[in-house]
């Protein structure tokens, strides 16, 4: 159910950014999300779950979406808002694939000034690894488009906390160090 909660909140973000009115944060989001699925496993799991689990998820999603509504604001069309932006960047001659999904990207890579801002939404509270997540988003976006984003933010719909970081060379270098550490740990574990 936690996975479904995350997917529904992401769908709600997409609808809100594109000015869709949500009469019921849960029902509308579930209806929209299920219209886009070819695999009905998660939906079936929800529909066959007991009433208590269903009620808990409903309350949970409504709460997260209400936080989004309150803090999100509106986005000018000139900012080119794009939701659920995926990246799959191959590095080291294709030996390593860096995957990422950013919930909201605003701005353009073709502007003369750095103007790209990324927002990731999480349904969990911001933990110790929040900065690391932000650095990873910045690194993958830089590798993907060859343009360093202006700013990356991580917003928690659980606590309404938002961590905003400007991107600079130091941050990108630290992201590379994080990646190096992760790969070393993975290699040792293997």
């Amino acid at each position, binding site marked *: 159910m936690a996975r479904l909660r995350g997917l529904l909140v992401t769908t709600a973000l997409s609808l809100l950014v594109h000015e869709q*009115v949500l009469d019921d944060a849960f029902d509308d989001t579930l209806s*929209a999300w299920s*219209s886009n*699925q070819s695999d009905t496993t998660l939906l079936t799991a929800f529909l066959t779950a007991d009433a208590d689990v269903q009620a808990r998820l409903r309350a949970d999603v409504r709460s997260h979406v209400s936080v989004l509504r309150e803090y999100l604001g509106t986005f000018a069309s000139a900012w080119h808002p*794009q939701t659920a932006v995926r*990246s799959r*960047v191959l590095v080291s001659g294709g030996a390593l694939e860096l995957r990422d999904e950013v919930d909201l990207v605003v701005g353009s890579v073709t502007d003369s000034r750095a103007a790209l801002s990324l927002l990731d939404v999480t349904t969990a509270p911001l933990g110790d690894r929040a900065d690391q997540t932000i650095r990873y988003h910045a690194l993958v976006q830089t590798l993907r488009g060859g343009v360093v984003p202006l700013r990356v933010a991580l917003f928690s719909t659980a606590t309404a906390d938002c961590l905003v970081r400007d991107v600079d060379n130091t941050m990108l270098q630290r992201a590379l160090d994080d990646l190096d550490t992760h790969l070393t740990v993975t290699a040792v574990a293997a």
Partner: protein
Amino acid sequence: MLTQRRFTQADLTALINSVAHSGEVLDTQQRQNFGNRLRSVPTTTSRRIDAWLVEQAGQSSQPFRWRPSTARRLVGTAAAHRVQREPRRAIDAVRDIVDEYMLRAVSGQARFGSLGHWLSGLTPAALGLVVAEATNWCHFLLESQAIVGHDAALCPADTYYNVNAAQTTLRGRRDMVLTTEARRVVLRIRQGSPGKSAGAGLRTDLLIDALGHPEGASAARFIGVWPDAGLVLSVDGTLENLRSGARAVVRAAVAQRRQLITIAA
């Protein structure tokens, strides 16, 4: 030969400017030979072949079904055209197009299974997701066009080519075209990252684009752009690449026929 570059303004400009030749021209005899090859692979129903089917080695996975993610390119591209003709918000253009499709369905002009018919049966929230996905695509396309350069014109439609007496329609995807002097460079934007058969897919689109051209002229270069991966792959409009594309289309038709025979058995 398949050329790979990063999807940056500088790399793409260099790739476009380095086109040395103007492409080949397919004559009537070559078209007939290709048609004969496809007619030799019989089919009882009409079939559609595109680069996606070629990349999947002729094995179609699931039957097509409208979803917000499958409707986004059609609606989003039409919206991008409108935004360019008459500057306005992308989301407003998308909403107008969705309304027009629904109006056609309500007035009985849309056939069963069409986009309009599907849209007219959606809940407001699902319709909202269609608008969201299409607006995303519209921004994605306009952003990609800005990277390619504003000389690139958005293509109003994909290329369709019917092979005579073979019950076969070829569909070539294309999103932008750049015409400079006698050269034509065609670009196709794809989401995700290129797979191992991306080259075969590009050659297929190159061939279909040439077959759909009134004079059979191939693009000087056909470029596939994968912004998600930050990559660009391209093939030149040489006779070798056109032949390779033709062979890939015939192979896909054969594989599709085998699959249908297996299902029937």
